[in-house]
C-alpha cells in the first residue's frame, strides 16, 4: 500500500509571524520554516501503520518554496520512504483552488492508495484543501478525524463535533484529514538524518505536471488589497468619582453586549 502524506511547510508558530504588506502573504523570509505540526501528525499516522504493516510505502508530497527542502528532509528522517516537492515561481500566492489542482495532479503522478493530510495548515487555515483534492480525484473524503484506523481495503475514523462523535468509513483509495488531537509525532534521530540523505526526493515544476498557473479559465481568488491591522485605540476608563462607577461599568458592558 502506498500512503501519500500531504505536508505543508509553514512559518514556525513558535516565533512571531508577520504578513507582508507588499504581497499579502505570510512573510516567509522573517520566520523559520518548518513542517506544519498537524501535517507531522498526519505523517505519524502513516508511519505508525507502515511500521506494523510490511509492504507499506509512505511518500510525502509538499507544494512549497525551495526553502522547504530542510523540512522535507526531516519528514524523510522521521521515516517516510520518499518525497515529491513541487516548487515553481508560478505558485507564489497560489489560492486553494490552484493548490488543490496541483496536489491532485501530483498525486496522480506518484500514485496512492490513501492520502492523509492535516485538516488545516497553521498559517493559511483554509481547512478545505483535503476535500478539494478528493473532489478533483473523485475520491471519498473523511475530514477532521480525531482517530484513524487504516484497513486493507478501507479507512475509518471518528469526527468529533460539539455534541456528537461521528464514525466514518470509506473504501480505499480515499483522502482523510486529521486534527491536532492525533498523538504527538515522533522526531528523528541521527540515523534518520543520515538515512534521509539517501532517500529519493523528486523535485518537479508546474511544467512537469502540465499545469499553467496563469490559466484563468478556472476561477481564481485574487488579492486586491492588504492593510495593516489598525493600532489598538485607548480603552474606556471608568473612574469612581461619584460612587456610580459600578452602574456605569454595567451600562458599558450592556452596551457592548458583554452582559
Amino acid at each position, binding site marked *: 500500500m502506498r500512503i501519500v502524506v500531504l505536508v505543508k511547510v509553514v512559518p514556525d508558530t513558535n516565533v512571531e509571524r508577520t504578513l507582508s504588506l507588499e504581497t499579502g502573504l505570510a512573510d516567509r523570509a522573517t520566520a523559520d520554516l518548518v513542517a506544519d505540526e498537524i501535517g507531522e501528525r498526519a505523517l505519524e499516522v502513516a508511519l505508525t501503520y507502515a511500521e506494523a504493516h510490511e509492504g507499506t510505502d509512505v511518500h510525502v508530497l509538499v507544494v512549497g518554496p525551495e526553502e522547504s527542502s*530542510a523540512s522535507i528532509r526531516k519528514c524523510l528522517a522521521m521515516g517516510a520512504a520518499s518525497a515529491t516537492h513541487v516548487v515553481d515561481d508560478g505558485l507564489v500566492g497560489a489560492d486553494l483552488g490552484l493548490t488543490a489542482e496541483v496536489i491532485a495532479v501530483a498525486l496522480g503522478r506518484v500514485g496512492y492508495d490513501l492520502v492523509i493530510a492535516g485538516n488545516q495548515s497553521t498559517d493559511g487555515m483554509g481547512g478545505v484543501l483535503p476535500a478539494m483534492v478528493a473532489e478533483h480525484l473523485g475520491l471519498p473524503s473523511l475530514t477532521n478525524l480525531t482517530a484513524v484506523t487504516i484497513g486493507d481495503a478501507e479507512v475509518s475514523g471518528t469526527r468529533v463535533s460539539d455534541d456528537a462523535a461521528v464514525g466514518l468509513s470509506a473504501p480505499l483509495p480515499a483522502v482523510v484529514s486529521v486534527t491536532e488531537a492525533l498523538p504527538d509525532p515522533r522526531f528523528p534521530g541521527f540515523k534518520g538524518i543520515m538515512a534521509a540523505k539517501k532517500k529519493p526526493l523528486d523535485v518537479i515544476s508546474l511544467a512537469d505536471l502540465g499545469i499553467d498557473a496563469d490559466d484563468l479559465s478556472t476561477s481564481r481568488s485574487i488579492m486586491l488589497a492588504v492593510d495593516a491591522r489598525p493600532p489598538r485605540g485607548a480603552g474606556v476608563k471608568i473612574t469612581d468619582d461619584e460612587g456610580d462607577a459600578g452602574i456605569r461599568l454595567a451600562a458599558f458592558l450592556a452596551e457592548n453586549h458583554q452582559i
Partner: protein
Amino acid sequence: MQRDIYDEDHEAFREVVKEFVKRYVTSEKAKQWDADGEVDRATMKAAAEHGIIGLSVPEEFGGAGMLMDFRFRSVVNEELIRSGHGSALASAAGIHDDLAVPYLAHFGTDAQKAKWLPKMATADVLGALAMTEPGAGSDLRAARTTAKKVDGGYVVNGAKTFISSGKTADIVVTFVKTGEGNRPDAFSLVILEDGMEGFEHGKKLHKMGFPGHDTAELSFSDVFVPDENLIGGVEGRGFVHLMMNLPLERLSIGAVAAAVGEAAVGWTLDYTTSREAFGKQVVDFQNTRFRLAEMATTVDVMWAYIDRAMNLYRQGKLSADEAAKVKFWCTEREWEILDQGVQLHGGYGYILEYPIARAFLDARVHRIYGGTNEVMREIVARSVTGRK
C-alpha cells in the same frame, strides 16, 4: 560571528536535539535529577535512541561513528546547555561518549568491542573513566590501585575518587598498576563491572556544582577481573592509552566552556532586557552594554578557537599540548563570562532558580578536572620552552 564548521546535517541534528530538549529536558526533570543526584536511565536511553548519546560509538556497533568528528557532540552540548536545564545530561553524555567509549573503540580487543559497544550505543551500558585516587590526582603516576596477576585474570585492590558517572556507570575503565615502580609501562586500563564482588560504589559526593550528575568514590577489595577485561589485552599500555585520548578529553571540556559562555550571554541579555532600574531597562545602561559586548566577543573568539581545534582533531592533528591550551584558556574565559553574567543579574544571579547561578557553580570544576589548569599551563610551557 557566523561559524562555518557546520553543514546541513549538523543543523538538522540540532533540530533533533532541540526537540529532544523540549520533550525530555524540562525544568521538572532537571529538578528531579538534582534531587536524585543523577540523570535517570530512561532519559539517557531516549537520548541514545535519537543518537544524542552514542555518537562516538562506531557505526558497525550501532553508534553514529563520530568518534573523530566532535561537531555533533558540540551541537549536543550547545543545545542542552542553552536550555538552562541540560547541564547534568550534557555532562553525563560527555563522560560516556568522550571519556569511556573511546578507550573501547580505539584500544579495545575485538571481543571487548563486540561485547560492550553495542550496549553503549543504546545507553543500556553506561561508562565512566577512573583515574584519580584519594592520594593521586594530577600526579597520576602516584596511583596505588593495583591489579595483581592471578590465574585467569587480575585481583584489583585500591580506591578511586571524584569519578564522574561513578554511581550510574555499568562499566568503569579503571587505571591500575600492573607492574612495579612508576614507569609508564607499569600501568594498565581494566574494565571494572558494576556488581563485581568487592567493587563498591562509595558515597555519593556532595559537590559545589553539577548536582544532577553523579560523582562517586569507588573502592576495590580483592575484585577479580578476568583477563578479557584488560583493555587491548596487553599489559602496560594504560598510560599510553590515556595520553592518546587526552586531546579529545581536553577538547570536550573546552567545547563545553564555549557552549556555556554562549548560553550565559543569552541568559544575561534576556535578564537585563526584562529588568528595569532607575526608569530604564538594565540593558540600556552603558556598563551593561559594554560588558555584554565584551562577553559576546569573547564567545566568538572561543568558538573560533574551538572550531579550529575541532577541525584539527578531525584530521588527527590536535596534539595533547594544543588541546591543553584550548582547555585552560576556554575554561578561564568561561569563568570570567559567568562571573560577569552573575554580576549583571544582580541579586538574582545568586539565586539558583536562575541558570546563570547554576552554570557559575557548575563551571568551577572546569578549571580543575580533566587536568587542572595549572597542569595544562605546565604542559603548554614545556612545549613553548622545550624544557621539562
